[in-house]
C-alpha cells in the first residue's frame, strides 16, 4: 500500500508539518497517532458525537469525517493550540468553575464548538440565548453532565465577552 501514500504539508497549531500519510487516514487519527495531539478524541467515527471537533481554516470540522490528505495546505487548530494561544482561556475557566465537564472526554470538542458559536455571536454583536447555545452544541454528545452546566458556562462567557471593553 506504500506506493499510494501521499505527502502533505500543513500548519498545525502554528507549526509546519510535512508528513507522508495513507490516503485512508482520517484527520483525527493523523493528529492523534501521527502528531501525538491526543487532546482530540475519537468517539463514534461517523460524525455524530463531536468528540473529534477541530478547526480547519477557521471552520470547525469533524476530524473523523475529513481525511488527512484533504488538509494539505490547510491551517489546523486543535485543543492544544487553542489552549496555548489563550484564545479560549475564559471558556476553560468557566467550564472548570461551573463543573461543565465530568470525564472530560467530550470537552475539547465541546469547547471548540462553543468557541465557534461565540465567534459568530461576536460578528453579529449578539449574545446567544440558552436555546441557541443548546442548538449549536447539539452535535456534541456529553454523557456525563446533562448539558445544563455546559450551557451555563457558555452563557456566562457569552455575556462576559459581550460586556467586555473592546
Amino acid at each position: 500500500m506504500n506506493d499510494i501514500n501521499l505527502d502533505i504539508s500543513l500548519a498545525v497549531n502554528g507549526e509546519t508539518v510535512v508528513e507522508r500519510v495513507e490516503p485512508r487516514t482520517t484527520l483525527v487519527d493523523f493528529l492523534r497517532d501521527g502528531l501525538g495531539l491526543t487532546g482530540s478524541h475519537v468517539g463514534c467515527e461517523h460524525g455524530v458525537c463531536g468528540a473529534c471537533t477541530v478547526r480547519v481554516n477557521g471552520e470547525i470540522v469533524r476530524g473523523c469525517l475529513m481525511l488527512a490528505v484533504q488538509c494539505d495546505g490547510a491551517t489546523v487548530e486543535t485543543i492544544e493550540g487553542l489552549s496555548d494561544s489563550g484564545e479560549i482561556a475564559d471558556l476553560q475557566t468557566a467550564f472548570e468553575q461551573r463543573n461543565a465537564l465530568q470525564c472530560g472526554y467530550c470537552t475539547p470538542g465541546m469547547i471548540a464548538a462553543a468557541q465557534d458559536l461565540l465567534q459568530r455571536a461576536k460578528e453579529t454583536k449578539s449574545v446567544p440565548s440558552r436555546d441557541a447555545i443548546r442548538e449549536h452544541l447539539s452535535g456534541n454528545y456529553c454523557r456525563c453532565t446533562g448539558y445544563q452546566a455546559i450551557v451555563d458556562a457558555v452563557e456566562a462567557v457569552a455575556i462576559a465577552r459581550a460586556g467586555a471593553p473592546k
Partner: protein
Amino acid sequence: MKITDDSPPVLSALDRPNSYIGRSVPRPNLHRLTQGRGQYVSDVTLPRMAHVAFVRSPHAHARIVGIKADAAKKSPGVIAVVTGAELAKVMTPWVGVLTHLKGLKSAPQAPIAVDVACWQGEAVCAVVARSRAEAEDACELVEVNYQELPAVTDPETALDAKTPVIHSSLGDNLCFERKLDFGAVDKAFTNSDAVVETTFMFGRHTGVTTEPRSIVADWNEGDRRMTVYQGTQAPHMMQDLFAKHLGIATDQVRVLTKDVGGSFGIKVHTYADEMATVALSKLLKRPVKFVADRIESFITDIHARDHRVKARIGVTKDGVITAFEIDDLTGIGPYSVYPRTSGIEANQVVNLTGGPYTCPNYRAQARVVFTNKNVMCQYRAVGHPIAVAVTEGLVEMAAAKISMDPLELRRRNLIADDAYPCGSASGLKFEKLSHHESLAHLDSMMNYAGLRAEQKKLRAQGIYRGVGFASFIEVTNPSAAFYGVGGARITSQDGATVKLDSQGAVIVHSGVTEQGQGAEAVLAQCVATSFGVTIDKVRVVTGDTDNTPYGGGTWASRAAGIGGEAAWQAGKALRGNVLAVAGAMLQAKPEDLDIRNGIVVDKAKGTERLALDELARVAYFRPDTLPPGFQAELMATRHYVPRAWPFAFTNGIQASYLEVDTDTGFVKLLKHWCVEDCGTIINPQLVDEQIRGGVVQGIGAALFEQCLYDERGQMLNGNMADYLVPMAAEMPDIECGHVVSPTADSELGAKGAGEAGTAGAPACVMNAINDALRPLGAQPLTDMPFTPGKILRALGKV
C-alpha cells in the same frame, strides 16, 4: 435535618476550622482536561506495542466449524492470528455466579469463543498487527466457516420446552429465579376498592460512554509482571481476575487507571475481548492495545433494562395502597456476566418495588433467562429505573382511578419521616429517610399548584402539558452484603493513605477511582478538613494497584461515602501523628495543639506555633534534633467499611413538566426537578451535577434509547446515528434541592448520590406523558422508550 438548596453551607460536627465539607470546591483535575491534556487509555502508547482487532460472529448463534487464517497471517503488519482454542491455553474460562443469589447458574465463558458463538458480536478470532488499521485489514481475510444454530431471542418463550437450550450443560435457559410473598396479598386485593393492572416494558439500552472501552496490556517477561492500563471502575477487582485466569499471583499484576472517558457501570465488568487482550500480551510477550470502536461498543458493552414487568396495585377509595404484585421477566444474553452476575438487576427490581411505601402486602416473581443477544449486566442505577417506574406508574394510575391528586396519594402512603429505623415489605432496612420532607420541598420548589392551574388553562387552548412524579429510594454505600458474601472477590471496604511531604503538602492515595464524578475533589476536601490544610496543599492519587490501598473502586454510589470516610479518618490519623512531632518539637502536649491552614496552632487560642514545612524539614532532614527514642510517623492509613447497615439507602422525589404535541407525538421537556437526600453533602456542586447528569441519562431511557434486535438476534441500530442519545437541544434545565439525613454509620455521614437521577427520571417522564394525555382518553403508555409513534398510537392517530 435541614432543607438546603443549590449551594448550601451544610456544616455540623464536621465543621472544623477552614472546613471544606459542604463547599463547592472546583475539582483539581479539571485544568488538564479542559486543555486536552488528560491521559485516557486510548491515548497510551508503549514501545513495541501491537494492536488487536477481533473477527466477530455475524450470527447470534453459530457453531464454529473451521477458521482459515493463512491469508490473514501474510497480510502486511500482521504479528499473529489467534483462535479461541489457542488462547484457551493461556487463560482459563470464567463463570458468572454468586452463591447468595441462590440457584443462579451460568456456563463457562472463554476470552474468544472456542466451538460456539452465542451472540452477534462475540469474538471468534484475534488478529494482532503493528497498527489497528492493518489488524482490521487482516480480519477481513480470516475465513470462518459457521454452521448457524437456532437463536433464542424472545425471553417470553425462552423457557418453553420446544425452545432450544443455549448451554446444554445447564439443562434449560433459566439463569435465576426469585419469589417473594409478604403479608396477605390476595386478601388485600380482595379488600381494595380499585385494582390497576398493567404491563410495563423497558427498552434494552446501553451506556454509550464517550470513550469506548480501552485497554493496553503489557506482559514483561523480564520481571514476569503484567501491567494493564485500563479504563475501569475497579482496578483491584480486575487485578484479581487477570491474575486468577492467567494463573499468576495478584502481585504479578498491576492495573493502572488514569483518566476514564465515562463509565456508568459499563466499565466494571469482565469483557471477553479485554481478557483476550491481556492473554495475547502474555502469549506474545509484548504490549497489546485494544480500543473498541463504536459498533463493537454497541454489540459488546453490557446492555441493561430489557425487562417485561406485569404489575398490579390495590388501593382503597380513601387512598390507602393495599398491595403490590409484580412478575418480572428479563433476557440477559447467553452468559451471566462475570463476576457481578446478571441476576442483580432483577434481584434489585423485586427488592426495591414498593420500597418508599408503608404497604405491607407484596408479592414478586423474577425470572432471568438466557438469550442469544449481547449480555446484560449492571448499568447506572441497576434495577432502580425499572422498580421506580413500575411502582410510581402504578401509584399514579391508582390515583387517577380513585380521582385523587398523585401527590396526595403519596402523602397518605409514604413511610413517615419519624418511623425510622424501619424496613420495607421486601425486607430492606432503612436507617433514616425523608420522603415527606422531600415531597413538601418539591411541592413548593416547583410551584405545583401554579403548574396545575397553567396546565388547566392551556388544555382549554388545545395544548397538552403533563406533570409527573417519582418518589424513589436508592441503594448506596454497599457493604459486603452486595457481592462479598456471595463469594465474589470484590471488596466493599476501601482505604486511604495520607502522607506529609517535605514541604508540608499532603499526598493522598485512595482505592476509589475517578471517572469524572469528582471523587478526587471529594477526597481532597475530606483530607484537607480533617488534617487541617488548605485544599491546594492536597494532591490525590488514585487508580494504581501498586500504589493505593486495597479498595473496591467506584460503583454503586460508594466513592464519596466509603472512600471519603476512609480519607477523612486517614487525615485525622495523620493529624495525630503530626501533632506528636509538634509536641516533641515545641515541648507541648499534642492534645493542646491543632493544625489549621497548614500551621500548628494552640488549640485553645489559635496562636500560631509551627508551620508544617518547618515541621517536615526537621522530621525528614534533622531527625537528630528530636528527643531520643522519638520516631516521627508522617504517613497514616485508614480503612472503612459500612458495618451497621447492609446499604445506606437514600431517597428523593423527582418531577417532570412537559408538553406533548398531539399531532406529531413529539415530547418537549419543559422543566425537571429533583429533591434528594444523600446525607451529608460534601460538595454541593458535584452532587447536583451527578443528579443532573443522571436525570438526563434516565430521560434517554424514557424517550430515545433502545438497542433494537430482530428475531434472528441481529442488532439493527448499532451506531450513534440510529441509536439516539440525549443531546443538548432536547434537554431541559433541572432544578435540584436537598434534604440532609446523615448516616450514623460513618463520621462524615455521607451517602451516595450517583444514581438517584437515573433511578427516578424515566418514571416521572412516563407519568408526565400519561398525565398530559389522560384527558384525551389515551391508554397509559408503559412501553419505554416513548417514541412519537407509540404516542400517536396511544392517541389512536395511527
